[in-house]
């Protein structure tokens, strides 16, 4: 064993507080230390060359650099030693800058600490084992979960780079929330005009396999090689024969009797339906919960849809299909749901019919929506309209302390659209703070104010009814006075919460969630599209409330990370993982319960556990708990850690 130790001055950063010659003196002559040198800047070329040369000339097989944090330069020096033919995992760093010279004020104490830290690193280095990273072949295809604008953008970008992409959407059509809007802030361009062409591109793309009305059932495997099982729900319509003519929907006995999810329950549909006229794919779907034949086995004398469908596309015997696919990378774009304001009892949602949510109002604006785009609420045109912002956002009492980011702006948009359609309407926005952070947003907010929409600061306390009239009670926090307004329409600026499917998708992929329950990115600033699970990326509102431009930008970012991965033939798997000594394992399954990633697998025949190398992330939790001591946590073995303890005390 020959350990080379290099102490860095980091200019004066370390040398001013640590007596470096003294450290060199204390370390030279320690067990296994073949050479101990000091240098101005170890990370510079001459510094790195010094290490390379010593490895070659003296045959060093372990190297310790005492310098800055390993979080800074461990990768640099690992590459240096590997260059000279040494195993990179036999390199060790002592952090004598961030955790010593920069934080202490007594030179003698700092020097003693540096000596202890370097000794500890030498002891650890002496016990480090050469590790080999394994090569894993990459499956050159991707899965995108969720077909909102984020999922659509990600799928198109990946497919355009030449890779097979599976886009799974649980609803009968792709499009997500954006498809429900008429106009989008701040430019007021028509949502359908910019979204529909992209949806059609998806359907026509030779590299995209679009799986609508489908759900991901099971995922295993890891970066480069995920195995995914997808459930394709039966539509009871033959996709090859359906022409999308819609005669069936016209004929359905339940036409106009079932509340439409796409219209937020305001509009009605039949048992056979498309969610909206521009749906992609334009395929009709029978809703088995309501269809008379599927539910009761009988629809009049004969099902009207079947009678009228010339191509004979209706298939009541269609069954659920299960599709297995292999992909190298996954993008999660499951989007958001609207916060349900039922829990905010004071606003009377669900009690008073003229209290509605932001998404519901979006459908009123839509020319293909329940009112044909006319501003008619429960039969009349409202004249006194109150918007209440931050419903379900920035509200610690209900557990949503975060800002939903889009509500201020969609309220401005909706207020503008109402004013345009009903010029004599009195429109008041009761807001908490105005957040118009995006490009063109502040300008749009100003424009809306100039149109005569009144903004009053301070949130609403209560909505109540008197003599069939609604009143909103609020406090103007700028004037410091309470006031009341009559209203024939109250719009709740409901916030965004994660899609309810985030639970199951998160569990399948072992994704972490942030305190707001949205998916957690690998780093809040520098890795906003990655997750801590290699090969799994995030796009759109699934990661946190976002407007459309940000969702699209993040989706393109996620797609580029996917492509970076898929262009590789092989990837290297990190060898810092747990290993099980099968002879010692007693099969108690403690590790299986502990592991957050299902890496330990029980072998029924041998009655022991083995670790799936590709899945283990190397936390070491299992190794700390294994009662029989059968688990070796590579690079952080018990004896390696104990050796450090013995040196620092």
């Amino acid at each position, binding site marked *: 064993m020959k350990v080379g130790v290099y102490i860095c001055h980091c200019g004066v950063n370390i040398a001013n507080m640590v007596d470096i010659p003294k450290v060199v003196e204390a370390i030279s002559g320690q067990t296994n230390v073949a050479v101990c040198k000091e240098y101005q800047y170890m990370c510079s070329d001459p510094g790195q060359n010094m290490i390379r040369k010593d490895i070659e000339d003296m045959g060093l097989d372990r190297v310790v650099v005492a310098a800055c944090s390993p979080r800074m330069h461990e990768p640099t020096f690992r590459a240096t030693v590997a260059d000279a033919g040494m195993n990179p995992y036999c390199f060790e760093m002592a952090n004598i800058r*961030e955790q010593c010279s920069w934080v202490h004020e007594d030179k003698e104490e700092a020097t003693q600490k540096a000596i202890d830290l370097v000794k500890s690193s030498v002891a650890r280095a002496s016990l480090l084992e050469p590790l080999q990273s394994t090569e894993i072949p990459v499956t050159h295809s991707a899965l995108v979960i969720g077909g909102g604008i984020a999922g659509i953008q990600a799928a198109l970008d990946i497919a355009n780079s030449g890779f097979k992409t599976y886009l799974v959407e649980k609803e009968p059509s792709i499009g997500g929330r954006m498809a429900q809007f008429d106009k989008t802030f701040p430019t007021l361009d028509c949502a359908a005009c910019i979204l529909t062409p992209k949806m059609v591109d998806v359907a026509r793309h030779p590299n995209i396999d679009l799986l609508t009305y489908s759900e991901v059932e099971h995922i295993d495997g890891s970066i480069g090689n995920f195995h995914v099982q997808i459930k394709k729900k039966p539509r009871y319509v033959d996709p090859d024969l359906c022409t999308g003519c819609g005669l069936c929907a016209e004929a359905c006995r339940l036409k106009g009797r079932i509340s439409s999810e796409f219209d937020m329950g305001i509009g009605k549909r039949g048992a056979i339906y498309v969610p909206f006229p521009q749906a992609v794919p334009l395929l009709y779907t029978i809703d088995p919960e309501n269809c008379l034949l599927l539910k009761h086995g009988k629809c009049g004398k004969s099902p009207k849809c079947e009678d009228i469908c010339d191509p004979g596309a209706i298939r009541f015997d269609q069954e659920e299909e299960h599709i297995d696919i292999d992909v190298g990378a996954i993008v999660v774009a499951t989007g958001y749901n609207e916060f349900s304001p039922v829990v905010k009892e004071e606003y009377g949602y669900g009690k008073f019919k003229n209290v509605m949510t932001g998404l519901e109002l979006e459908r009123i604006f839509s020319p293909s929506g329940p009112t044909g785009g006319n501003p008619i609420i429960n039969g009349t045109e409202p004249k006194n309209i109150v918007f209440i912002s931050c419903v379900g956002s920035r509200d610690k009492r209900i557990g949503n302390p975060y800002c939903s980011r889009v509500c201020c702006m969609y309220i401005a948009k909706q207020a503008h659209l109402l004013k345009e359609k009903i010029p004599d309407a009195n429109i008041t926005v009761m807001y908490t703070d105005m957040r118009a952070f995006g490009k063109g947003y502040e300008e749009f907010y100003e424009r809306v104010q100039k149109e005569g929409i009144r903004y009053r600061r301070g949130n609403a306390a209560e909505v109540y009814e008197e003599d069939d009239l609604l009143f909103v009670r609020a406090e103007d926090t700028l004037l410091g006075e309470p006031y009341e307004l009559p209203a024939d329409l109250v719009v709740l600026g409901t916030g965004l919460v994660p899609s309810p499917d985030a639970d199951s998708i998160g569990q399948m992929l072992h994704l972490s969630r942030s305190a707001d329950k949205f998916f957690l990115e690998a780093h809040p600033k520098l890795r906003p599209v990655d997750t801590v699970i290699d090969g799994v990326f995030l796009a759109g509102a699934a990661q946190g409330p976002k407007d459309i431009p940000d969702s699209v930008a993040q989706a393109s970012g996620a797609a580029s990370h996917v492509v970076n991965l898929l262009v590789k033939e092989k990837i290297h798997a990190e060898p810092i993982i747990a290993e099980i000594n099968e002879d010692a394992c007693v099969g108690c399954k403690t590790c299986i319960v502990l592991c957050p*990633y299902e890496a330990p697998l029980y072998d029924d025949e041998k009655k022991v556990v083995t670790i799936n190398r590709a899945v283990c992330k190397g*936390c070491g939790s299992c190794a700390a708990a294994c009662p029989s001591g059968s688990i070796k946590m590579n690079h952080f073995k018990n004896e390696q850690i104990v050796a450090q303890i013995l040196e620092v005390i």
Partner: protein
Amino acid sequence: MTEEFKPKIVGFLCNWCCYAGADMAGTSRMKYPSNIRIIRVMCSSRINTEMIIKAFQTGADAVFIGGCHFGDCHYVDGNYRTKKRIDVLKRLLSHMGIEQERLRLEWVSAAEGEKFSKTMAEFTDTITSLGPSPLREIKEEAI
């Protein structure tokens, strides 16, 4: 013992949060006493009972464990396991005659350099006023 008592503290810090927080204290030049000797692990849940007992047996006056805040664990929920393990171990230490305060678990995020340095100052104070670990005295007497 006339010499001033300088406690020996061993710290096990997870790579992703607390170790990064300690680095942050460094980058921001937030000073704290030099007593702690830090050992880096990937997750605080890597640390088992034997390692902590070993530290005390070898003569440590205190052991500090630093992990990520709940919900922030790089490995989903490793820190919950750490919490459980440390709670049990604290009771065990009491039985061994070691004050529970000598084992401290803190969640420090990568951004909380200030929290790290303050915690170090405070912890060092606590241990200084507690005096040397009873285990260390037994060991020294034996020598």
